[in-house]
């Protein structure tokens, strides 16, 4: 194990209440707090733990996005990544294009592991890791809740609908992480200072030979249908009465 790449996405902070623009052209992003996608933080934490257990593992944080994405990469560096790469672009990047970009990075860097969050909390697509694994022609272990590395292999426990599933994959491999893999560390002030001196390279889609472009057209964004406000009951007897009248129990 020599190198781990971790994908970092800049997303609207999970505490922000999302509002749709009145003209249906998207969601309001002006002045909204942006953060590292929470699943990507878990992915980075896992990479750092592997680094701290072993020797000479380099952890590289990679992101694709606008110039300000450097903020999220600085956070990753402060958490403990050794260096960062920003593939800077102003156009929205769909999962397939993100996967092609990460493939170009993987070919350059030859990592043993490529960690990603299982999904980003903005587009909720849940695609990029699987797509990267496909075009890299490497294994994928999605929704990881436990990762054990030994002898060029990873034993990964996955959270699936029926419970837990374990698979073994040869390295290099793509691993996408789920909520309960670990609890990411908090960043301390001295680490933020130190992170300022760590290398952060900026490159572009063109330099990596990836053609940007939207394959799907978003024609409208609207708020979800609201549920009607319901009734309050005063006690259990009334609750059971209402449920029985509705034929629900």
């Amino acid at each position, binding site marked *: 194990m020599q190198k781990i790449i971790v994908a970092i996405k800049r997303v609207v902070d999970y505490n922000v209440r999302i509002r749709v623009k009145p003209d249906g052209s998207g969601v309001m992003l002006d002045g909204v707090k942006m953060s590292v996608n929470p699943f990507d933080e878990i992915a980075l934490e896992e990479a750092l733990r592997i680094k701290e257990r072993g020797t000479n593992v380099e952890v590289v944080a990679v992101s694709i996005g606008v110039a300000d994405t450097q903020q999220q990469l600085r956070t990753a560096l402060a958490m403990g990544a050794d260096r960062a790469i920003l593939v800077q672009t102003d156009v929205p990047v769909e999962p397939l294009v993100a996967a092609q970009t990460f493939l170009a990075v993987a070919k350059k860097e030859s990592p043993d592991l490529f960690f990603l969050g299982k999904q980003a909390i903005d587009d909720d697509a849940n695609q990029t890791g699987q797509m990267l*694994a496909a075009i890299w022609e490497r*294994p994928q272990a999605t929704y990881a809740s436990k990762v054990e590395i030994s002898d060029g292999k990873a034993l990964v426990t996955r959270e699936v*609908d029926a419970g837990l*599933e374990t*698979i073994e994959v040869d390295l290099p491999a793509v691993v996408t992480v789920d909520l*309960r893999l670990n609890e990411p560390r908090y960043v301390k002030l001295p680490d933020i200072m130190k992170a300022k001196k760590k290398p952060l390279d900026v490159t572009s889609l063109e330099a990596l030979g990836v053609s940007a472009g939207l394959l*799907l*057209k978003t024609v409208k964004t609207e708020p979800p249908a609201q549920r009607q406000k319901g009734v*309050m009951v005063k006690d259990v007897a009334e*609750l059971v009465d209402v449920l029985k009248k509705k034929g629900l129990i």
Partner: protein
Amino acid sequence: MHKVLIVGEHDGKTLNPATAKCVTCASGIPDREITIVLLGADTAAVAAQAAAIAGVKTALRVDRPENEHPLAAIFAPQLAALAADYSHIFGPSTSFGKDLMPRVAALLGVPQVSDLMAVEGPYRFKRPTYAGNAIVTVEADPARKLMATVRVASFEAAPTGGNGAVESKTVTVALPSHTRYVGAKSGSTDRPDLQTAKRVVSGGRALGSAENFKMLFSLADKIGAAVGASRAAVDAGYAPNEMQVGQTGKIISPEIYIAIGISGAIQHLTGIKDARTIVAINKDGEAPIFEVADIGLVGDLFQIVPELERLVGG
């Protein structure tokens, strides 16, 4: 004519109801012909179930020993080879489909539309983003194959009563050896499956312990319900991961959802928005869960739950 291929989910014996929900979704496409493909070691039983879903023309069996376990790295190249004959390829938005379908899409070099919740045309769909807080309408290019996962909570299962054909197909593609199935652990119970249950009793952090959480199992058994949990309850170790309901857990649409001691974080609400009736029991009358609940009861769950169990038994 749109030829739709649906990737059937099954355990070798039983077809997952998510498959029949995909059929309903696909039926929204005008002028279509629906095929369900089943990959497995022996798909005879599940192919017969698939062919019996109304609206299905063909159940396609792809049997080979390597297909015993649903590994995306093994299934994807076979599906990519089969895709040549179809315009649309759908799979369920379950952990099976979410793992598999993007791998197929990337092998085909096409984008995927995740979590279809409404079909507005053969290449125009609605899907949720931002934990369901923004619904987007997307249009795909008809020149490309349309790959999608189907948000199963948005569709009723198509009924049985169909009379489709069962065909076997040999797919000759090289399969990788880099991914191996080791084993599975499931907290399988006699309770209804959370994803398809008509009734769900669900608990949050307020239950306080795994021991207390057992109260909900007792209530659930009394009314024949499945048991769910909020992320907070799962993180705290009160309930196993497969019970988690919400943005990153299961998205469900039962007839009745009884939320007990769940405050109603937005990520949780996105998992229950399609429930027909939501009942909320919480000691905090200001909890956001009451904003979506059809019936609310403010009070101490440790008194309410045993009383509820006693009264529903009558």
